[in-house]
């Protein structure tokens, strides 16, 4: 549904995006990660049709945003980073106005507005003005706006910003429900646990360049370490580990009788077998838990070192 090929964006001399390529299919959620100024919002603004790219191509539902911008925009629901609605309109009036902009006929408008208000849980706020809404309800209104006309593609820029934990939970459920409906969703966020929970894939960008694009599961497995707990004499266990081969010889002491070592997933069972054969009394053999924050910090800091 969303396809970007070698997309670049230059602001004067600043290269905000450098040959970015991604694709997001139906029923898939892609999390776009990166530090401030990495180019996330620029990428999403291009995908929403608000900004032009300097080079490369972006397609929504097979339609080029450069050549068929209007038709492509009709397939997209876009939530900008700081969503603001005009203050003079009530929530329900705003949604009716937006439904008109999205070519929803007058007959269908009331039903459609009611549908999206129910979906995001703002029907109780229908007669409130935008500035009277809390941050969470403002975001919900933005999402309701995105969902008008049931577009197959959703582009959400920092949808979790400013939400409290309960609102985040609600919002996560809404996004997961939309994924189930088969929508292609791309969103940027600084709230990494949320990304880890709901995204199928993540794309980490830094200084406009792709650092990594992978499934969340895969990403969390990269550089995973094995924690080995043993019993008996610590020094003896350490010397026996050194005899087990190169992988186990590189074990680092975490504390007495506990060692940490990098072992490839395919080799883990064999290494355990080796340790037992060498008479090491293994009492624990676990995989150290990593989260997206660790992975993100790793990729961004390594990029900073390279940069």
């Amino acid at each position, binding site marked *: 549904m969303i396809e970007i090929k070698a997309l670049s*964006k*230059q602001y004067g001399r600043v290269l905000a995006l450098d040959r970015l390529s991604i694709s997001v299919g139906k029923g898939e959620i892609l999390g776009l990660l990166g530090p401030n100024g990495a180019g996330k919002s620029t990428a999403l*603004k291009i995908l*929403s*049709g*608000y*900004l*032009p*790219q*300097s*080079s490369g191509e972006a397609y929504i539902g097979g339609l080029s945003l450069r050549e068929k*911008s*209007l*038709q492509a*925009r*009709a397939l*997209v629901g*876009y939530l*900008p980073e*700081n*969503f*603001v*609605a*005009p203050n*003079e*309109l009530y929530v329900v*009036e705003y949604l009716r*106005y*937006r*439904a*008109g*902009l*999205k*070519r*929803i*006929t*007058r007959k269908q408008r009331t039903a459609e507005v009611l549908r999206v208000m129910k979906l995001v849980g703002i029907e109780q706020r229908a007669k409130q003005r935008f500035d009277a809404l809390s941050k969470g309800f403002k975001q919900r209104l933005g999402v309701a*706006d995105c969902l008008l006309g049931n577009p197959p593609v959703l582009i959400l820029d920092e949808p979790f910003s400013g939400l409290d934990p309960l609102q985040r939970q609600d919002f996560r459920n809404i996004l997961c429900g939309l994924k189930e409906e088969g929508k292609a969703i791309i969103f940027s966020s600084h709230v990494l646990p949320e990304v880890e929970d709901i995204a199928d894939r993540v794309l980490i960008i830094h200084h406009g360049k792709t650092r990594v694009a992978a499934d969340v599961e895969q990403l969390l497995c990269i550089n995973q370490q094995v924690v080995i707990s043993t019993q008996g004499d610590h020094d003896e266990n350490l010397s026996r580990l050194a005899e087990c081969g190169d992988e186990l010889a590189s074990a680092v002491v975490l504390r007495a009788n506990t060692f940490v070592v990098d072992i490839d997933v395919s080799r883990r069972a064999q290494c355990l077998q080796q340790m037992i054969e060498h008479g090491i009394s293994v009492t624990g053999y676990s995989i150290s838990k990593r989260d997206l924050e660790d992975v993100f910090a790793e990729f961004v800091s390594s990029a900073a070192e390279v940069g």
Partner: protein
Amino acid sequence: MTPFFALLRKELFALGVSPFVYVLLAVWFSLNALLFNISIDTQYIQADLSLLPPYLFGSGMLVWLLLPIFPPLLCLRMFAEEHRVSTLEPLLTAPITDSAVVLAKYFAACLFFLVFWGGLLFFFLLLDMHGATLDWARIIGGFVGSCLLSFLFIATSLFASSWGGNLVLAAGGGAAINYCMLFLPALFQYDDSVLGEVSRNSHLPNLISNGFAAALIDSYAVMYLVLLSSLFLFLTYLRLVSRRWIP
């Protein structure tokens, strides 16, 4: 057409509920009522009431001093304010063409400006109800001319409003363009050169006072005002669409 009418309705509604617009209306009607009061008290107007319409709809200095300012203030929120408060991004990412955005905003401002001029017709209705003999051809002519001139100023104001989120620049820029269009041709109108000829033919006070307000609706004047308005609307469109062109 649905997105166009949706935006037109929203813009009309936004103008209709804006306190600032009501302040503008109050100032407009107060000053025009004052001008009406002063004019009606003068002996030569009392002697010939047909001289009154040009004062309110055409050659009155108040008209020329006020008119260039009001459209920019009215159009301030249309692009500049939307840009400033970030509501322009959701609008321009909706499936609506840039030309429809410009035209919907323009027609909303034009329709609303009819209230400004329509209110002045009330003064003449008041005189008519009190038995005064009025030259309605001049009144209607002056009304049409003033409306067309205001629509031109609305087009220039929209253009100035599209420059960015700076409200001072939007209002000041729009007023500056309007004053230049009013008074620059006056500097050259006694010149014998081609420039003088162009100036005489494009001097807006002349077109209104000697044409519309004298009940002469000249197709040249109508076309001149309509084309000039179209030019500024096109420039506004270019300003908006250039966002997508300039990589």
